[in-house]
């Protein structure tokens, strides 16, 4: 585990980023919310149309939508009597990029193992 190596960055920005990441991971840690997000990333849906897709109350679906909205993964707009929801592609990308960046860290480490073995291939004799 590594300590915060870029602590020279403004700490307020870091805190805000971490709060945002917490909200995103929380929002995505639910099957229904991920399903809602998949739908609204493809196209705008009214909240009532979304609610009709699940075997749960309108209020429950509305709550899920609100969690996604607070995490910045979804935005709503009003169109007459309807509430229309659409997914925020950029925000979803930033969650995925957290794990993608960690993957890069590991790829570097594995490349170093590979290089070490290639340079010193002798297997120890027990």
């Amino acid at each position, binding site marked *: 585990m590594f*300590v*915060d*190596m870029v602590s020279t960055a403004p700490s307020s920005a870091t805190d805000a980023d*971490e709060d945002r990441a917490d909200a995103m991971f929380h929002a995505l840690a639910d099957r229904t919310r991920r399903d809602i997000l998949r739908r609204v990333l493809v196209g705008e849906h009214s909240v009532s149309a979304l609610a009709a897709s699940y075997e749960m109350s309108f209020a429950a679906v509305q709550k899920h939508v609100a969690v996604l909205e607070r995490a910045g993964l979804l935005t709503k707009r009003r169109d007459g009597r309807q509430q229309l929801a659409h997914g925020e592609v950029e925000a979803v990308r930033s*969650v*995925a990029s957290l794990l993608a960046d960690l993957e890069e*860290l590991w790829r570097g480490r594995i490349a170093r193992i*590979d290089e070490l073995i290639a340079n010193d291939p002798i297997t120890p004799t027990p």
Partner: protein
Amino acid sequence: MPVTDVTHDLDTRTLVITAEFAAPIERVWQVYADPRQLEQVFGPPSFPATFVEHDLTPGGRAHYFMTSPDGEKYFGWWRVTGVDAPSRITFEDGFAADDSFTPLEDMPVSQNIYAFEPKPDGSGTRAVFTSTYDSAEALQKVLEMGVVEGASSAINQIDDLLAR
């Protein structure tokens, strides 16, 4: 390329990396069993790692620090929870404040499983590295290191090596 598969699990904040090395399992194990070799691969060239304690036995601990380009030291620890040489090690990885290596209680800890097995065709070793972070905060702290890493340059290095 040595990395053959990568799995991201957003729900559990788990990263699983599968890699294949052209070496017998005992040789790959040695990279983890020998602290002098481990510190060559653990940190990126810009943040070299130094292991000052390395007890690869169940309940054993490893203590390390990483040194930034401007000389600042960052301290970390492992608590080894299981060892089955040469095929498996499990450990917790966490932060420490200083060279006493006392775990920082309020800081995140990751759970790690490193598993090695000979490839069925005898051409080398398959390694599966699983790391689980218990919070987004924990993940981000590691990723801040990832920004420094410049991993693509490390991958290019290995391509250069293979091309020789």
